[in-house]
């Protein structure tokens, strides 16, 4: 049963790699940004998985409960989510600008345009 304790992590790693794969193989810039988001969100799940304590509850202190999950990863991930949104917003703004000056958001077409330029 020992491996069951790691099952969550493995699924999360699979998710991360799916996102990572989308980032580095897809030629569409919007898809890249989505992949990046996927990758980051999965890392967040990794962090939150490690904060869980068996039998614990949310770290809002109340007299009824004694065991709480670890609040620190939550704090870190709150910050990281914000960073993720900021990156997404900037990336998408760049995509819009690229589309305006190149007329396409496909990586290979952009390369082609730059070569012939």
């Amino acid at each position: 049963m020992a491996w069951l304790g790691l099952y969550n992590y493995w699924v999360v790693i699979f998710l991360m790699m799916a996102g990572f794969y989308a980032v580095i193989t897809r030629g569409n810039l919007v898809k890249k940004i989505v992949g990046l988001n996927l990758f980051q969100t999965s890392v967040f799940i990794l962090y939150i998985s490690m904060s869980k304590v068996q039998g614990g509850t949310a770290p809002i202190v109340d007299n009824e409960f004694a065991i709480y999950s670890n609040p620190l990863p939550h704090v870190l991930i709150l910050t990281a989510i914000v960073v993720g949104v900021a990156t997404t917003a900037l990336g998408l703004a760049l995509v819009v600008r690229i589309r305006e000056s190149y007329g396409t958001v496909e990586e290979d077409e952009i390369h082609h345009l730059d070569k012939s330029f």
Partner: protein
Amino acid sequence: MEHLIVIVLLSFLAITAVAIVMLHDLVAVVMLFGIFSLLSAVIFLVLDAVDVAFTEAAVGAGISTVLMLGTLALTTPKEKTSPRFAPIPLLVVIITGAALVYGTLDMPRYGDPTAAIHQHVAPRYLERAPRETGIPNVVTAVLASYRGYDTLGEVTVIFTAGVGVMLLLGSPRRQTKRKRGKR
């Protein structure tokens, strides 16, 4: 029960992720990303991270989706299908994944209360934060006070994003090759 929910939700997530990578209709991809975000928020909730779930809910399902749609409206909603097989990136991904799986082997088991992470810094927060800051929500206390400087950084990041978007899209576009003039 919690375990079961997490496992089911994780499987949903895996299916959604694969679909996101495979699909070429970008609108569908954005919709599925919305689902991905919803699911991860529920997982955060089940894993006791309520504040994170709240944020992911507000951000992932709301803002990200809207922004991505806004971008699609300004670009194109279809990805060009390029059915080339890319062995080197795949290899990179597999190596990275293998490194992570290798790294998990010595990890404390999921939910193990004796893990180092639950022994060192966090217990002090849980014990003393409500008294020291007068706030029962330990996450808020740590976020705003103990690690308040991180949060200043967080606000700055958002501010940077605002400045960046204003710089990139704020001014009217330079090339004026509009197809539909305002007549």
